[in-house]
């Protein structure tokens, strides 16, 4: 795949369509030479980013879409997931399974933790409507580490 290739995908704000984005990301990562286990990590991270955008950013509003911009360089794949929300202002916290099992913490709320844990870079940016996004990066130089 040529360095500098860009692909854009637009999703309706309906749960389930995140699978379109993860399939696209998986195809690009595979073409770039990422290993199967890294592609699986990326699929989960992209799915969680899109779910957050659909549910929390666009609040399931079917008039709004989620944009996914996938960009390649020689050694990395960058994925931006943009929505119409205000963006994320706080850093993800690690889920506490003991608190969840005691009913002291919502069983949900693991998406941002998984995103951060499964890719090489994850950053959240706040912006005007349609411009808030999460940026994910996986790098080929991490393949053998």
């Amino acid at each position, binding site marked *: 795949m040529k360095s500098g290739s860009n692909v854009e995908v637009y999703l309706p704000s*309906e*749960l*389930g*369509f*995140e*699978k379109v984005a993860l399939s696209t990301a998986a195809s690009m990562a595979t073409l770039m030479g990422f290993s199967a*286990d890294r592609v*699986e*990590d990326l699929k*989960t991270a992209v*799915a*969680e980013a899109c*779910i957050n955008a659909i549910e929390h950013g666009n609040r399931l509003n079917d008039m709004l879409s989620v944009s996914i911009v996938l960009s390649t360089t020689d050694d990395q794949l960058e994925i931006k997931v943009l929505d119409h929300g205000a963006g994320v202002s706080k850093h993800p916290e690690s*889920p*506490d*399974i*003991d608190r*969840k*099992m005691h*009913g002291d913490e*919502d*069983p*949900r*709320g*693991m*998406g941002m*933790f*998984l995103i951060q*844990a499964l890719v090489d870079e994850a950053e959240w940016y706040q912006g005007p409507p349609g411009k808030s996004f999460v940026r994910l990066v996986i790098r080929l130089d991490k393949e053998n580490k």
Partner: protein
Amino acid sequence: MQAATKVTERTATAASGSPVTILAFAGDIASTSKDAMMDAYHGVDASVSKVLLDFTGVDYINSSGIAIIIQMLLEASKAGGRTIAIFGLTPHFNKVFTMVGVAKYASMSPDEPTALATL
């Protein structure tokens, strides 16, 4: 848009001789799976103390789906005396379940015979 979650129930016997109910899932495990999964779990006879969750037929699980499994574990813990174990996850989801701590409350095995041997 999510692929519907199908749940089938079957019985087996653990290595210890105890009866085991196996709930086998197929399709997506996501927020839309909650009714199918929890209804199946609530349908398990109250006298059954060992439940196995079979994910062999599942290839997509997201964090909302994992939350449903945590809810199941929480209910089993509150009821007392019921053990839930898991098998059939892909290596990737085995890793993800471990990362979020599910492995602390449910043993995870690669296949049904191994899972039955642990109960």
